[in-house]
């Protein structure tokens, strides 16, 4: 059933408490089953072979040597792989990533050209080196600035927006700031290598696959093979990190299904680390331009933010680089525009705070430049331009917004008053000291989610949903919501997730799952209590529940939390807000930037679990430090045989922040429950990352007087 939000607000203390993760003991003892651990023991092993050219056509895959190697059972390629249909993503009209081996075209370096199936991993890896592939080579286009790259200007990301009249806004300005920004490609790099194991039972497909969205993978596999959705089951109870890379049904998943079909046995495919750089998406680079017009008093009169991002030659990736700009500040005249250019690069995808992370860096850096130009305190500048209503949604009032409080509290915590605003004015020995800040208005995202709540004969409860816990604490918060509303001990609630045969869920992504699933859970609880003849507000407790179930085995109810309709509600659904404050030290001679303090103050509505919410912000901030200073997937651009090859597809060469890069991170939550939904939650998965790069970059400017409009900010840019 579908219900409008009527479930009562929570009162008892299990909500908000920092209870430890319910899956914590399993994880730290190694008892947890990742998708690959569930693969049938007799599964064969598939190893993918990637193209060593960047654009062209495969003329021949000669598998004879590979097939003769020990242990090899089969080699699949476009010559003989099963034909499947290219599906669409479950949530949108976008095309899902192209299943492999359907044609001989090579669209990027590392595009799969063959799959070797053998008894053991070692045998498959060895045989993979014996597959001889011949190509007709075409000239690839891999540089985002290459004029030959086809440019999609018709707003594929739904990002473009025009408000008022930009020219007028600029004419009204006393000061205009204009700057270009460049951010590099980043790769998600979850520690767990992605894996898929497929087993066919007649026409039914059972898949264990690393994913952040089992429902979507199942939908896409059913469409690809033309089989009923109920004949596909995708399981993934846990995964070793995703950061967005598990949101789509990537080609390796199809490869496992094809191989299992071909050899008539279960086959598991595990990606290598280099394949994790090309096979499961990444945060695309951006080229951005920002123009800000303001009056002397700091009032923004015009904002223009345009961005170019790459997309693969045959894929869609709606990445909204300007969403934060559209809703961030009260400005009458605005133009926001995102173009995509098609390149022979591996398909970009979502990486924690997709679009938002890159766009926020440009906007919040430009605002810092404006503050310097106007001689206005950067915190004050943000406050003066606060969007009290959502300018991007007909000026509807926000369902909740405590950005102002985030800014005030953050300034207090970091000691913003102690900062001498003059650039390069604070020095300790060789170290230049700087403070910087940025604000974040994270977009709102929610998709329908269905949850089943089961109350058993003994008064304990179970919750069923296809959703994923990607390490964020979904198991834990769902447990809390149910315990809270049924009046149960945490230990009396069993949560079952990560299985597409359970009620359908949205992705664990877009900071949208916690809102969707907690509300669906609250609605299902209210429904089941109603069905049991109990007061939905009473949190009856185990004995009363057992009594109400009576002689039955159990009583269950399903409910769906739908996407709210802003116009009907008369308010604009809010995402999280945040303020980031950084204190950095920059070696005056060597250009080394070290973050000394990082303060995040976040408004994420009702905090369901202080501990897991804080972990989200801490983890996001670590990613933000990497985004600011370290992470960069480097692609060879010069003409020649290496064009389009990633030069650092390796954990030793792709630098992510390590402990020594990360100070003790300070996190505080402000604001109260959101008005929109019964649980009052707003997602907190991505707001932690956003704004960190701009805060650090602005602190680097304050320390050194050097403005770096490029990510990552490396020592060579500061010499």
């Amino acid at each position, binding site marked *: 059933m579908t219900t409008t939000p009527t479930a009562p607000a929570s009162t008892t203390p299990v909500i908000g408490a920092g209870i430890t993760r319910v899956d914590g003991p399993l994880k730290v003892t190694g008892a947890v089953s990742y998708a690959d651990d569930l693969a049938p023991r007799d599964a064969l092993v598939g190893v993918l072979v990637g193209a*060593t050219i960047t654009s062209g056509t495969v003329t021949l895959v000669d598998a004879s040597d590979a097939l003769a190697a020990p242990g090899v059972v089969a080699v699949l390629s476009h010559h003989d792989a099963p034909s499947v249909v290219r599906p669409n993503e479950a949530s949108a009209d976008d095309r899902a990533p192209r299943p492999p081996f359907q044609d001989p075209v090579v669209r990027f370096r590392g595009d799969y050209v063959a799959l070797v199936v053998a008894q053991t991993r*070692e045998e498959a*890896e*060895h045989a993979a*080196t014996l597959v001889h592939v011949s190509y007709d080579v075409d000239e690839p286009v891999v540089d985002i600035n290459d004029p030959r790259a086809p440019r999609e200007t018709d707003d594929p990301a739904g990002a473009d927006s025009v408000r008022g009249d930009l020219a007028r806004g600029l004419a009204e300005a006393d000061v205009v700031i204009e700057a270009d920004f460049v951010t590099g490609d980043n790769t998600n790099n979850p520690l767990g290598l992605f894996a898929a194991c497929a087993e066919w039972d007649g026409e039914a497909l059972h898949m264990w696959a690393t994913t952040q969205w089992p429902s979507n993978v199942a939908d896409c596999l059913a469409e690809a093979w033309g089989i009923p959705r109920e004949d596909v089951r995708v399981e993934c109870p846990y995964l070793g990190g995703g950061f967005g890379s598990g949101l789509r049904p990537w080609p390796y998943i199809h490869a496992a299904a094809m191989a299992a079909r071909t050899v008539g046995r279960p086959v598991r495919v595990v990606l290598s680390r280099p394949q994790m750089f090309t096979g499961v998406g990444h945060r695309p680079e951006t080229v951005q331009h920002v123009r800000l017009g303001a009056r002397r008093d700091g009032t923004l009169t015009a904002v223009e933010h345009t961005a170019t991002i790459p997309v693969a030659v045959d894929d869609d990736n709606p990445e909204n680089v300007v969403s934060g700009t559209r809703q961030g500040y009260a400005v009458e005249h605005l133009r926001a525009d995102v173009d995509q250019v098609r390149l022979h690069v591996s398909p970009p995808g979502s990486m924690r705070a997709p679009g938002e992370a890159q766009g926020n860096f440009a906007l919040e850096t430009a605002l810092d430049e404006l503050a310097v130009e106007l001689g206005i305190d950067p915190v004050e500048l943000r406050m003066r331009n606060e969007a009290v209503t959502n300018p991007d949604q007909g000026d509807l009032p926000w369902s909740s917004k405590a950005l102002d409080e985030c800014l005030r509290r953050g300034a207090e915590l970091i000691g913003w008053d102690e900062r001498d605003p003059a650039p390069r004015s604070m020095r300790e020995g*060789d170290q230049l000291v700087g403070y910087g800040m940025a604000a974040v208005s994270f977009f709102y995202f929610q998709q329908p989610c269905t949850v089943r709540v089961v109350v058993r004969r003994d008064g304990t409860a179970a919750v069923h949903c296809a959703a994923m816990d990607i390490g964020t604490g979904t198991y834990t918060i769902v447990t809390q919501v149910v315990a809270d509303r049924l009046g149960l001990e945490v230990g009396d609630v069993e949560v079952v997730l990560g299985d597409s045969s359970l009620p359908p869920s949205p992705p664990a992504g877009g900071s949208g799952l916690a809102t969707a699933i907690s509300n669906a859970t609250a609605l299902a609880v209210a429904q089941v209590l109603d069905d049991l003849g109990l007061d939905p507000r009473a949190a009856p407790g185990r004995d009363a529940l057992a009594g109400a179930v009576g002689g039955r085995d159990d009583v269950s109810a399903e409910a769906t939390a739908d996407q709210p309709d802003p116009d009907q509600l008369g308010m604009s659904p809010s995402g999280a807000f945040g303020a980031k404050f950084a204190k950095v030290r920059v070696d005056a*001679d*060597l*250009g*080394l930037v*070290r973050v000394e303090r990082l303060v995040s103050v976040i408004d994420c509505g009702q905090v369901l679990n202080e501990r897991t919410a804080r972990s989200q912000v801490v983890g996001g901030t670590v990613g933000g430090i990497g985004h600011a*200073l*370290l992470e960069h997937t*480097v692609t*060879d651009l*010069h003409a*020649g*045989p*290496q064009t389009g*090859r990633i*030069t*650092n597809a*390796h954990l*030793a*060469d792709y*630098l992510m*922040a*390590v*402990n*020594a*890069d990360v100070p003790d991170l300070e996190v505080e939550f402000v604001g109260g429950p959101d008005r929109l939904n019964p649980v009052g939650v707003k997602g907190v998965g991505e707001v932690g990352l956003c704004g960190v790069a701009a805060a650090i970059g602005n602190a680097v400017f304050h320390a050194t007087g050097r403005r770096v409009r490029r990510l*990552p900010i*490396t*020592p*060579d840019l500061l*010499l």
Partner: protein
Amino acid sequence: MHPFTYTRVDDVAAASAAVTTDVVARAVQTPDDVAFIAGGTTQLDLMRDGVWSPGSLVDISRLPLTDVQVHDGVLVVGATVTMAALARHAAVRDVAVLRDSLLLAASPQLREMATIGGNVLQRTRCRYFRDPTVTQCNKREPGSGCAAIEGTARTHAVLGVDAGCIAVHASDLAVALVALDARVRLSGPGGTRTLPVAELHVRADQDPSRDNVLAAGELITHLEVPLPEARSGYLKVRDRASYEFALTSAAVVARVEDGVLEHIAIGLGGVGSVPWRATRAEAVLRGQRASLALFEEAATAELADAFTVPGTDFKPELARRTLVRQLRDVTEVTA
């Protein structure tokens, strides 16, 4: 990974020479087809990446070469002593340049695995070298060209290189060792010999296809490090605060008496195709009155003929500043 045979030589009862000879006998027959493995932190990567696929792997990690001793002011270190163990050793604790070159390298886990012999013989991190799908690499395929020259070369070398190869020798330890006038003891088919570490490696501008002067089957058995009667230090500059190779580094050993540099020895890391002994800078400094201006002059002289490509054009300046900083900090001269 290609199939290979694995032999462990761990006969501690037999004399190390005998074991070594046995290993050598096999290695000499087909040099490229036999590889030693000690901690394996370089060797296994090379094999997994398909860069070097020996048919036979000889595990030397059990050889009785695990002692650290001091004889007459010389530290003698067995080749299979781990980086972690050496850094912990009492005799190393006060030799800042040696200690820090070890502790600032890799990660704790790697340092517990990695051996001293393997460290100085580690192969370049050049990602073109380490990817067999890249066809241009003079180090792997002499005469094929160098993909790094026009490619991504931020971590590459600017000294001891030319357009044929710009690979960096990435060891931190070896940089400290050249500044300490350390030697390696070798044992091979032709018998034993001792070489300065500064003569162990082959510059890329001389022959990119050879990393070092070891004969086929020749083993490093020990390091000899004269303990300095001077102050020393190792400064490592890198993007990430830990667990990264050097963008630039400087090992400085110096003794200042009455304001005059009586002893000076300098190694530079992250910039050379070999662990770089900064003889030009030393010549400017030796016997002179120490001053910041002199340090600038010395560092500038050392980097004057650097060979850069677009990716490395920042490196001479960063290396120069790194050296000046470290000269200042080791000598404590502030004007």
